[in-house]
């Protein structure tokens, strides 16, 4: 939800804005957000020309210990020295850190994102001369070549260069400095030089090179002059955008570095952008921007920043997948260029024929406003390796409560308890399952979070109990802006504890948001987060009980009257400027809230918290949605690449508002969106306050039936979803993944983003075109077969398949070779289905084999960490289907049993025998010869038992 409504509430002050909004333009007002040219550091850094790097490695300063290499770099233009640190991390990751050798004051290094100090592996020196150093990177045949003049790093495997740093010479590091035109500078610099002299006298061994250099400096008038000449550009010490002035007390502090990826034509990631899965080159426009912003009515297919940022880029070609993780929480811009981007297929062919082709190469450049360079080079080589490498750094997806994988019904707003009751009853009347109903900001007492409107929600516990009686749950919103109101307990406590973010003058920072004037708690403080978490206790947050969960919106943070609708960069988080921590704020809000939900249950229950803003590591705290989209076909389409991009960088629990937030969808669009959303990880319908109601039954019986059907399909697949999330939690593999992740050598998959895989085994090609009569889906894998999950029709892989569609069609295919457990008894909510029996869908591949898994636990506690779970493996080979325990040490019992086995691509057996610990018995079966589908009737064994079913 965004500023639309707020505009209207702001009244005359913002009348002009209102007029703009009403003028009928539904697009984002781009003028409210900076271009690279309007962001002084981006403009300065982007103006640097390649091939003129002033940086030189001082090889004589090299120190190599078992775990790290350090080396000084010098900028020959201004003599400022940097310290390079290089680490070899376990799991084929190389970490490169560059900071000022002697910064005027410490520069920000992002805390709390890495799950631990990454374990290192030994580095060894292979060779060294005056031009550079060669180091071996662990056991792989990988080496790092450090070149001295100009400084560059190349990572090489065998004869291939995997990646080069500063190969274009775009390393930029604006050292901290005193402002020269001020009195204090003159005084301080004099004092400093005196102090330096004193130091030099008393510590003669320290840093001989530095001493030497500094000593020679005064004797070198040319160099001194050069430094003096360094021109003070506009925007270095103060910057104004629209009516906002950034006081920039630390002056220029940007960092940037370029990376070259030889042989790479496809790069992905760096969410969040409303753009295609494959990232585009940025030569002709702005770089991709990473700066968490509340963008009102965002536009698609451009590199503008959105609500969240994960500074992780993946590169992929048929031979290798790699990742670059740029750990910096300040405003960041990413430039991408490619030597093949402009070439047509014909041009590439010509190059090939003439043998004149240069290797394709993608060049990437990262620019951040402050902090240091701390970059993790995840060297793959497979997509799975990159996922596990990134997971080893920032952790994996939080394992969500099972119910949160069901359907969520949201709207701004469900008006009161009666409204909630009647919507809940509507689902029963129309026999549509759902698990969560959501309350947006209007449920509070005057936008005071942690409270309830005394009239509309006078007895929240009664309401929650009513939902609980049907085994359903609720989510209520808690935003991080706190109404400035001395009658509001939360505000008083935060103020009295000094927990608010401060403005540049030291007072509590105040901005304008839903409640009017609001303060912003400093979530970067652990003590603040602990206090916040404590507010979710049942005795603190009145009217709540176990089935109430939380939604964090506006945590970019959104500040209606701030620059670019967010917080002033010179606001203070204790000793750090907001500039340094901006992209991290939302993660901290999400984290503190999730911790609150865990604490309120004494650490027993899994939390469910949805966030709009995010950063690297946010996957550990819950779900993310793509913010305030619109009821347009393009927004439906973009939900696929947006969630795929998030999945690639660890955030699997992703979804887009079904139906579109702004505007009102046509019935066709709404139905198509439900069909798409039902096969995306986070499945929630949401709508703007200004739009007409759109509960599933409001569009005539036919459409109600279509929506009911697809929501029910979702519920039948819940066991598979749950298992995929368990896998994501364990390994970091995305739940929803691009095809190239599973078919990395098939270039036809590299740019696909109108279809996707769920795990390895389900391929989904949603219908996202208005009035579509058919879709063309690419079925990957030359030797694979795919089964239509609705008709059981078998199709060969490695082809583009045209599929005629009607309004009821949602093309989904199960991979031959897989076994998917489903629950076909769809009930009111996922919890109601807990003890229901399974149907196993066994899809045979060309070798007539198949494999699959089943994961079961209690669905809502952390007891799975204590191995209270059941994890089984099914395999089919040689006519025998068996179930074996993957976790023999685990303890869990279930009432669920196997009611049906459907084998796709089977031939007719003469007899089917079940063997369990209790003995053998014959099973009834039914064979459909036209589709080669064998249905085994009611084998009846417990889902946790060891068994075999033999076809004879």
């Amino acid at each position, binding site marked *: 939800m965004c500023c639309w*409504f707020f505009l209207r*509430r702001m009244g005359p002050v913002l009348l002009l804005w209102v007029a703009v909004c009403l003028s009928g333009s539904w697009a984002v007002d781009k003028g409210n957000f900076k271009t690279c040219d309007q962001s002084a550091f981006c403009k300065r850094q982007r103006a640097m020309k390649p091939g003129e790097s002033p940086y030189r490695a001082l090889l004589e300063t090299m120190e190599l210990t078992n775990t790290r290499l350090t080396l000084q770099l010098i900028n020959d233009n201004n003599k400022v020295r940097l310290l390079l640190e290089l680490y070899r991390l376990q799991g084929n990751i190389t970490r490169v850190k560059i900071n000022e050798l002697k910064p005027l004051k410490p520069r920000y290094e992002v805390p709390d994102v890495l799950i631990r100090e990454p374990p290192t592996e030994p580095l060894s020196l292979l060779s060294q001369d005056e031009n550079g150093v060669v180091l071996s990177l662990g056991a792989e045949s990988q080496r790092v070549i450090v070149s001295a003049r100009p400084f560059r790093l190349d990572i090489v495997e065998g004869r291939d260069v995997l990646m080069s740093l500063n190969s274009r010479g775009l390393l930029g590091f604006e050292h901290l400095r005193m402002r020269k035109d001020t009195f204090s500078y003159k005084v301080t610099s004099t004092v400093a030089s005196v102090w330096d002299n004193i130091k030099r006298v008393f510590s003669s061994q320290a840093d001989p090179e530095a001493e030497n250099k500094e000593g020679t400096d005064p004797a070198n008038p040319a160099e001194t002059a050069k430094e003096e000449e360094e021109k003070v550009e506009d925007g270095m010490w103060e910057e104004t955008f629209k009516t906002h002035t950034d006081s920039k007390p630390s002056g220029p502090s940007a960092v940037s570095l370029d990376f070259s990826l030889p042989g790479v034509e496809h790069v992905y990631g760096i969410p969040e952008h409303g753009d295609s899965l494959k990232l585009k080159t940025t030569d002709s426009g702005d770089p991709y921007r990473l700066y968490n912003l509340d963008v009102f009515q965002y536009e698609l297919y451009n590199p503008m920043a959105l609500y969240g940022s994960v500074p992780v880029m993946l590169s992929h070609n048929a031979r290798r997948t790699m990742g670059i993780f740029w750990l910096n929480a300040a405003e960041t811009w990413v430039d991408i260029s490619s030597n093949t981007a402009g070439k047509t297929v014909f041009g590439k062919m010509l190059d090939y024929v003439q043998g004149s082709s240069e290797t394709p190469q993608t060049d990437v450049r990262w620019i951040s406003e402050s902090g240091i360079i701390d970059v993790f080079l995840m060297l793959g080589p497979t997509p799975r390796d990159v996922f596990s490498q990134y997971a080893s750094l920032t952790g994996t997806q939080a394992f969500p409560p099972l119910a949160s994988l069901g359907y969520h019904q949201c709207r701004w707003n469900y008006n*009161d308890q009666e*409204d909630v009751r009647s919507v809940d009853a509507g689902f029963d009347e129309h*026999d549509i399952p759902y698990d969560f109903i959501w309350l947006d900001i209007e449920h509070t007492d005057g936008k005071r979070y942690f409270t309830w409107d005394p009239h*509309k929600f006078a007895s929240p516990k009664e309401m929650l109990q009513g939902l609980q009686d*049907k085994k359903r749950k609720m989510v209520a919103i808690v935003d991080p802006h706190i109404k400035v109101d001395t009658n509001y307990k939360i505000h008083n406590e935060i103020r009295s504890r000094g927990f608010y973010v401060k403005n540049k003058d030291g007072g509590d920072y105040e901005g304008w948001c839903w409640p009017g004037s609001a303060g912003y708690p400093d979530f970067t403080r652990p003590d603040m987060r602990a206090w916040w978490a404590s507010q979710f206790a049942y005795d603190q947050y009145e009217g709540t009980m176990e089935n109430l969960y939380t939604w964090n919106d506006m945590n970019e943070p959104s500040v209606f009257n701030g620059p670019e609708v967010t917080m002033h960069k010179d606001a203070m988080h204790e000793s750090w400027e907001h500039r340094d921590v901006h992209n991290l704020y939302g993660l901290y809000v999400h984290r503190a809230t999730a911790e609150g939900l865990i604490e309120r249950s004494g650490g027993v229950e899994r939390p469910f918290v949805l966030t709009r803003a995010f950063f690297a590591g946010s996957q550990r705290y819950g779900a993310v949605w793509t913010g305030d989209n619109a009821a347009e076909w393009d927004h439906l389409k973009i939900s696929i690449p947006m969630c795929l991009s998030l999945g690639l960088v660890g955030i699997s629990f992703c979804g887009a508002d079904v139906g579109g937030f702004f505007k009102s969808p046509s019935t066709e669009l709404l139905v198509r969106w439900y069909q798409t959303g039902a096969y995306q990880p986070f499945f929630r319908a949401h709508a703007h306050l200004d739009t007409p109601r759109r509960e599933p039954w409001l569009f005539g019986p036919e459409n109600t039936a279509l929506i009911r059907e697809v929501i029910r399909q979702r519920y039948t697949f819940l066991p598979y979803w749950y298992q995929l999330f368990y896998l994501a939690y364990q390994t970091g593999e995305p739940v929803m993944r691009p095809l190239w992740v599973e078919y990395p050598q098939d270039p036809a998959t590299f740019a696909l983003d109108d279809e996707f895989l769920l795990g390895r085994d389900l391929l989904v090609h949603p219908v996202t075109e208005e009035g579509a009569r058919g879709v063309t889906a690419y079925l990957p894998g030359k030797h694979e077969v795919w089964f239509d999950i609705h008709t059981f029709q078998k199709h060969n892989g490695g082809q583009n398949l045209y599929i005629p569609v009607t309004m009821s069609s949602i093309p989904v295919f199960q991979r031959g070779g897989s076994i998917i457990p489903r629950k076909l008894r769809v*009930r*009111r909510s996922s919890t109601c289905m807990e003890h229901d029996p399974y149907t196993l869908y066994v899809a045979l591949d060309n070798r007539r084999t198949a494999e699959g898994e089943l994961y079961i636990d209690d669905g809502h506690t952390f007891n799975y960490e204590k191995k209270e779970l059941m994890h089984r493996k099914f395999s089919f080979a040689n006519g025998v289907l068996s179930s074996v325990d993957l976790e023999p040490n685990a303890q869990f019992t279930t009432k669920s049993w196997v009611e*049906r086995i459907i084998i796709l691509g089977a031939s007719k057996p003469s007899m089917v025998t079940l063997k369990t610990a209790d003995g053998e018995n014959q099973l009834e079966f039914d064979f459909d010869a036209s589709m080669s589908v064998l249905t085994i009737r009611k084998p009846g064994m417990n889902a946790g038992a060891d068994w075999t079913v033999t076809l004879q």
Partner: protein
Amino acid sequence: MRFHIITAAFLWAAFVESRKIRGISSSYKRFYRERKSFLCIDGSKIIPFEQVNDDYCDCADGSDEPGTSACPRGRFYCTNLGFRPHYIPSSRVNDGICDCCDASDEYNSHARCQNTCWNLGQKERAYVEGQMKTLDEGLRLKQQLIEEGVLLWREKQAQLRELQRAAEDLQIKLEEHRKRKHEADRLKEQTLKALKAGDRGFRHQNSTVSHLFQLLDSNKDGSISLDEVKAKVVLVHDETRVLSEDEALTLLGGGHQMDLSKFQNTLWDVLTRGDGYKIKDAHSAPGGLMSEDPHLKAADRAAEWEAADLKKVEEAYETVNMEISDLQKKLEIDYGTDWEYLFLNGQCYKLKVYEYMYTLCPFNTVSQKSTAGTEVSLGLWGMWAGPAKNRYSQMVYENGEPCWQGGSRTTSVSKDQHAALASGRTQTWSTQSNFMCCVTSANVNPCDIWGRASFTRSLVLPAYSLTGTQIGSDKTIK
């Protein structure tokens, strides 16, 4: 009583039904006669009878599993002895939630369901009885209101006729008065003319001439001297200045003396013309002198009298006509086929929803007032707008305060039969405002919050029952 008989019938039916087949009603019993095999009710498949209710779905229509949750499209029959029987979707069988009041749907779950049918039945019976009573009462009241409506209507009609008659009378009177006033005015005019022209009533004129002559002839010698003129005659526009010898001489026709006959033909004319000279200290112009004329005075008085009378009658006529048109307007409104809604006219009802007070004055206005005190018109009486079959089920109020995005607020008020029954009243109305706009100030307007959302709140009119929240009835229908 009928209800009890039906219940008894079910009791009996349930008892003789096959004990094995869970989840079917007696009317479906014939499909489940225990034989070796079972034919799916849609005829699609024959299965062994043991497979009925064996927790596996064999029939596409779900008919083999009426008592389990196995079939996706199945249904389960709650017998609910003592209460109403009904079907639930199979998916609610053994899902841990008690759906049937007889607990029959949770025969194999951890849910601990109580059989609440008897209590529910009791309650429902009491409720139905109450409803019947209310309904009877309501119907009686409705009949009463219709009668009252008819009476009221007749009364109004009679009132209208009376008023019309009065208007007619007044019109006649008016004509009469107009004539009389006209006559009086004419008389007055004539008198005035006659006086001026002097061609009528010589004696009267003469005496006036002689009266003036005597006034000027201070020494009473029968002639007016130069001194006497100078002493008594002045310029009309400058009364203080004494006339000069020459002016006096001119007035006397050049001589020093003037007798009565000469006066009558010369100076009298000059003095009575009133445009040059007049007699000193005379309070009024020669006209004023004329008004002292008793004839003129009488004519004047008569004319004034008639004018006042006419005005009174005119006013009365206007008032009566206004009342007539008022009454006609009210009587033109459609108060239902039997005038059963007539009694609502002139009443106002208030409904408080959170911080807003809504006031509905049927056939008149709907408005909303916030606690802050700002009042917004949500519409003026428009029309009945129910569907053709039930036109009187909905009222529409239109042309309320305009919305900032254009268009104006409208409100529809619907008769809510269900709520009426639930509330024990026979007439309940719910208002549903359709505000296509909002925000008139920096504050949140409630229509943002729930007007849009087609929010419905029941407004209980004390229609046919005696309780309610009636306020300020101004009884505008007389």
